[in-house]
């Protein structure tokens, strides 16, 4: 029987481990930036909570609500990215096998993971609440700090939602096929439907929008303004209009009853979701996982097959039965004693072909490209489908409708750039090799080649239709996305940041958010191709600079 204390210790250790990772810092900084965007102190055009033609005075309740809503939207996507993967990490590091030999039950282990996920997200929420308070005090619209109204939306809206996110992260860690990058894409769709549904009339009100908007409408009407036509929305936008103001004290304890009931329901669902994962979790026993009916990872079709880094613990594990890769090929010698006719280490290395220096960028490019695409047959099938679709569909005005989707398809492959997460501890092998900058640039080129491979047909069709500016914009996008992937991978040394960031960027682009239109899908409104290409160059230089700094301080 595991005590509450043991569960807490497990969760706390896991939380500490993740809190010290760069990705945590990146998402935390993003959360704090979001707080400042949601309730800007100066004359920013950016908004996170839109009330058409109006913005509220910075009371504790208003600042608390807009930052809590922004935090809910941001952390349910970016926060999910940094919370999932912890069970896989335990398996890779061997900690899981140690825990499996303790009295800790499956449910207790998953509960610990759920709690630690919640701690990660909760700690960011706490920082966001602190930012909200600071913003209110700095802005000075209202000197009265009402802690209850400031924190109420955090406690009753955002925290329960993040509990659901924490539980889903556990679930995605256990369900075969959702553990890797494909899970990130599935979550993006879930998130999109959830966030859009929360703001639409018919969807489940995850964000408590009905109660908040009704209360704000009353406040606007009390100020003598027509409130019926006022529209609300949550999401990052920029608006140039001069807005009127309204005075809203925020949600008070009297309005908390319904929210508390919803919160309770959401937390109950979250706990159930997290524990459902126990159906697929076999205490790091692969044999049990197979006997339990789920397919072994090696037999799962891509993209359901997780990347499997080499673990030093493999050295002591019996080799799995292997088979020749091709008919007629000699059987691999796993576990075989060397025989007299085929012994190892009997040749004379001095009589081998001399090693001649003079490798080219092309050779490095081929190597990096191979690492990105090797074994991804289904990915190629998808790319071919998109190419055929692009060939069949004509350009829609000065853009091609397939182009954005083609530029989303390689997101998982691009996320492997700038990091060696799927190569285990391969860094030490490469660190002893010359020309790290050349290797990094070869990696970038491999990403660009990949982008060209998926975007070639739409770009060719645009070129044939004479849309040269659209072609230039698309080519600039082809440079930008791999550069972004390279920088994200270099900063965090993992794929998660890009997997979380790029879909958001793509979502902004496809929704014609002018500043984010890196592919030119909104003609004459987005940044120029030169600006996009310059940004790509800046991102590349950033990655190179970071790599150089790491090299100098290794």
């Amino acid at each position, binding site marked *: 029987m595991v005590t509450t204390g043991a569960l807490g210790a497990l969760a706390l250790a896991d939380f500490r481990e993740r809190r010290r990772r760069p990705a945590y810092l990146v998402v935390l900084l993003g959360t704090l930036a979001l707080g400042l965007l949601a309730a800007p102190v100066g004359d920013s055009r950016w908004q996170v909570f839109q009330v058409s033609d109006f913005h509220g005075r910075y009371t504790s309740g208003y600042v608390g609500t807009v930052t809590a809503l922004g935090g809910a939207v941001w952390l349910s996507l970016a926060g999910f990215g940094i919370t999932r993967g912890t069970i896989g990490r335990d398996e890779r590091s061997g900690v899981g096998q140690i825990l499996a030999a303790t009295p800790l039950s499956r449910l207790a282990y998953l509960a610990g993971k759920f709690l630690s996920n919640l701690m990660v997200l909760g700690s960011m929420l706490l920082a966001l609440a602190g930012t909200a308070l600071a913003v209110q005090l700095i802005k000075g619209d209202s000197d009265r700090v009402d802690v209850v109204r400031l924190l109420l939306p955090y406690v009753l809206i955002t925290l329960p939602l993040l509990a659901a996110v924490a539980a889903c992260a556990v679930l995605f860690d256990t369900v075969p096929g959702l553990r890797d990058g494909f899970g990130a894409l599935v979550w993006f769709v879930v998130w999109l439907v959830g966030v859009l549904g929360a703001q639409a009339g018919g969807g489940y009100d995850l964000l408590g929008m009905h109660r908040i908007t009704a209360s704000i409408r009353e406040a606007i009407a009390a100020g003598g303004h027509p409130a019926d036509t006022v529209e609300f929305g949550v999401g990052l936008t920029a608006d140039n209009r001069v807005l009127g103001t309204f005075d809203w004290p925020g949600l008070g304890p009297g309005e908390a009853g319904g929210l508390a009931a919803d919160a309770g329901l959401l937390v109950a669902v979250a706990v159930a979701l997290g524990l459902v994962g126990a159906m697929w979790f076999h205490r790091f026993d692969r044999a049990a996982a197979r006997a339990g009916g789920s397919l072994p990872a090696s037999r799962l079709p891509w993209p359901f097959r997780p990347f*499997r*880094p080499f673990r030093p613990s493999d050295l002591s594990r019996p*080799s799995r039965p292997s088979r020749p890769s091709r008919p007629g090929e000699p059987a*691999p010698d*796993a576990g075989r004693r060397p025989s007299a006719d085929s012994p190892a280490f*009997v040749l004379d290395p001095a009589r081998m072909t001399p090693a001649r220096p*003079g*490798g080219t960028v092309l050779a490095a490019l081929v190597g990096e490209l191979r690492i990105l695409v*090797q074994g991804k047959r289904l990915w190629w099938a998808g790319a071919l489908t998109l190419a055929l679709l692009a060939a069949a569909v004509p350009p829609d005005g000065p853009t091609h409708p397939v182009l954005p989707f083609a530029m989303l398809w390689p997101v998982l492959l691009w996320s492997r750039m700038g990091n060696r997460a799927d190569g285990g501890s391969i860094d030490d092998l490469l660190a002893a090799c010359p020309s790290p900058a050349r290797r990094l640039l070869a990696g970038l080129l491999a990403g660009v080649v990949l982008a060209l491979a998926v975007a070639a047909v739409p770009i060719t069709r645009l070129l044939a239709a004479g849309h040269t500016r659209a072609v230039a914009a698309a080519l600039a996008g082809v440079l930008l996305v791999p550069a972004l992937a390279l920088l994200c991978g270099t900063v965090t040394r993992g794929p998660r940041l890009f997997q979380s960031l790029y879909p958001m960027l793509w979502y902004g682009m496809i929704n014609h958010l002018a500043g984010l239109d890196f592919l030119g899908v909104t003609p004459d409104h987005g940044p120029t191709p030169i600006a996009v290409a310059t940004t790509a160059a800046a991102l590349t230089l950033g990655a190179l600079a970071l790599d150089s700094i790491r090299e100098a301080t290794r």
Partner: protein
Amino acid sequence: MCPSATAGSMAGMKTLRIHDLTKEYRGGKRAVDSFSLTLRPGVLGLLGANGAGKSSLMRILATVTRPTSGQVLWEGTDIARRPGPLRRTVGYLPQDFGVYPQLTAREFLGYLAAAKGLRRRSAKARIDELLDLVNLSGSSRQRLGAMSGGMRQRVGIAQALLNDPRLLIVDEPTVGLDPEERLRFGNLLTGLGAERIVILSTHIVSDVAATADRIAVMGGGRLLHHDTPEGLLRAAEGRVWELTVEPGQLPLLRSRFLLGGTTRTPQGVRVRILSGERPAPQAEPAEPRLDDAYLLLSSAPAAPAAPAAPAVKEAMAW
């Protein structure tokens, strides 16, 4: 190899000079402490307990990490400031290394050959030959993710030899190899050491005994001793004893002496005692082995220098 770094020109010789090298990690943990040594072609066996600083030293020598202070000169060039020349000619096999599980052994070696800056044609020929050398030719198309630990270790050895290294650094290279492979690999290192500098770190003293022509013993990040195997054995002469005792007397012996090993015999337990003085009147002097010499060196502070206490002498006087 000579025991310490001294001034003087060594132009024209393949030398690796380690001078007053220190590596301090965050929190003040000193993994390598004022380590000095000059290496020339030959096999240097690096021995030390866990945490002695062997892997940190090897990571510095392979340019994976920088020293906090001190210098490593490869043919006169400081490898911390200009790692390029050494990286073009070093072969490094870390203790734990990763592979891309989707790649085959041939593709993985091809990738690392490109990373090491080898010409394509030369790399291709060497990869074929190295796969033969490590007896993986028949598995060269098998994905690394489907290989056993021992097979991947052999891939690791092959990658370390890709660029025909002048300096070969191998950290626990025999993990996962069977006894026969270990033996042959030792012979391979000995052959390579004829013209190259080979640094071999291992816990298995017998591997070093069979392979190295110099041995460096590390403890607490420092170089405790550096000598030939013969020199180490000479230093242990007169300090190794054998004695047969009742099993019940072992705990007492352990508390008083450094034991080099025990063997069960019909007469009792035959104990190898490492001591400067005869531990008991019945104790017989024994021929030192390299394990004994290493234990005496690495446990120097704990080894008893004073004669055995009277109570012990009494206990031994049966």
